[in-house]
């Protein structure tokens, strides 16, 4: 119950940034449009090489823009890492809460609030764009249901991944380096630069063994029907597998880090 309160507090705080959300919507809309124009050029140059229908790709891109703050590996708040750095973590340690759960919940709340402000407007506007450039309806009702479920799982994967990054702050004096490293590698591997279906098949086969493809790729491809509804169970099991692994690892590692932590006075 107390974690639910953490969720609510952080959720309502994050809802306050409405002007920032509007600016974000405009940015992401422009970004998505340019990406679609770029892929259109490739489509026109060689339509046979396109791995999925053009309309599916545009839906993928719009979903990516809409759920950016929910799923992007780099869209975390640096507050936790800062608190480890500057020592305010001492206050958190005094509380009778499990730190891992609290951080996890706070991050979830923040990402959810941001996506509430940004996600829907982007999808609605994109829905009015003419086909094939617009956002289209899911390939079936069951796909939509599976998409929502998989979206939530993907969100948990990314937050669990972020937690591992936060814990590295116990071991470095400056977090800037590890953040840049994480942000860039994860952004690429989760399909933020090029949607994963466009990767060469051999590379994709390797990527499927990493947690990154379980973040946005699985739900989006379920939505467009690229992954048939029948494969949903298998795909979501992979997502759950990663959630379990990453959370267990993070939990253990955090406990281990506490053993060596020294909080300076002052």
């Amino acid at each position, binding site marked *: 119950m107390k974690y639910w309160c953490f969720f609510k507090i952080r959720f309502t705080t994050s809802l306050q940034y409405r002007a920032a959300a509007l600016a974000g919507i405009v*940015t992401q809309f422009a970004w998505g449009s340019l990406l679609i124009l770029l892929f259109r*050029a490739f489509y026109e*140059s060689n339509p046979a090489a396109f791995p999925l229908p053009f309309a599916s790709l545009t839906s993928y891109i719009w979903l990516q823009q809409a759920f950016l703050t929910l799923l992007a590996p780099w869209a975390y708040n640096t507050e936790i890492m800062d608190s480890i750095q500057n020592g305010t973590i001492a206050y958190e340690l005094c509380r009778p809460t499990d730190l891992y759960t609290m951080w996890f919940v706070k991050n979830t709340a923040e990402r959810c609030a941001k996506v509430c402000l940004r996600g829907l407007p982007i999808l609605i506007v994109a829905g009015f764009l003419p086909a094939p450039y617009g956002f289209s309806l899911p390939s079936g009702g069951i796909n939509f249901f599976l998409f929502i479920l998989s979206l939530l799982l993907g969100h948990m994967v990314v937050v669990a991944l972020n937690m591992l990054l936060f814990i590295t702050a116990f071991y470095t004096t400056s977090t*800037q380096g590890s953040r840049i*490293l994480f942000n*860039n*590698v994860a952004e690429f591997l989760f399909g933020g630069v090029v949607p994963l279906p*466009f990767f060469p098949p051999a590379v994709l086969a390797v990527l499927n063994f990493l947690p990154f493809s379980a973040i946005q790729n699985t739900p989006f491809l379920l939505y467009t029907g690229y992954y048939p509804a029948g494969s949903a169970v298998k795909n979501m099991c992979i997502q759950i597998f990663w959630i379990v692994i990453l959370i267990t690892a993070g939990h253990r590692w955090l406990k281990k880090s506490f053993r060596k932590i020294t909080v300076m006075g002052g």
Partner: protein
Amino acid sequence: MMQLYLKYAAIILKGRMQDKASFFFGILGQALASLSSFFAVYFIFYRFKTVKGFSFSEVLLCFSLSLISFSFAECFARGFDRFAVFISDGTFDRMLVRPRNTVFQVAASTMEFSRIGRFIEAAIVFIYALSTCGISFSAGRIAALAMMFAGSCALFSGMFVLYAALCFFTLEGLEFINIFTDGAREFGEYPLAVYGKRVLKFCTFVIPYALVQYYPFLYVTGRSSRAWYILLPLAGIVFLLPCYVFWRFGLRHYVSTGS
């Protein structure tokens, strides 16, 4: 002034070197960032072979030029990128009482040396692209490449200044400007005509990205023989002028946040 700037640079570098692990991670991270954009282009061309008649090495030329000039501009104009922080924490108020030009001080206040990682990476791609694209080099083409670099650096720096100048009014950074900085870098990896006529027109007449990239690029690759295209990147340098004027205008309207 130059001496003072170098002194600032030396101090910042010294400060960054205090935590060597983080500094090198930063460089590595930057290198990986451009490595991933390189792979993005590579993977896409692995599949499609060509886009609108441009080959892989030709696009790589555009790609590396965009990255080189952006990392250059970002390294030295980083202060403007972080300007919203300077306003909100009062750093800028301190600058105002010093007897030096504000643009100079903001530019000298921070330098992002980790961008060297991106720079080296892009330079390697640039050399690779030059050696494989099969362009026979004349003095004019080399001049055009140099102009593209200078023009893009100036244009990117101008956009950073513009972004900072807007902060005088909004007090916080406006995310949509990202489209014109980070976005221009990402999307400028391809010849701008691939985005269609409307985008090209915007990049010709509103913000002159196409003048520093697309048109001189046509000359470099031999698609156009108009030698005056070499001079078009000057537009990037001219663009600094309105940016500076806007900065002055914003400065006059600046009211401190009081912190």
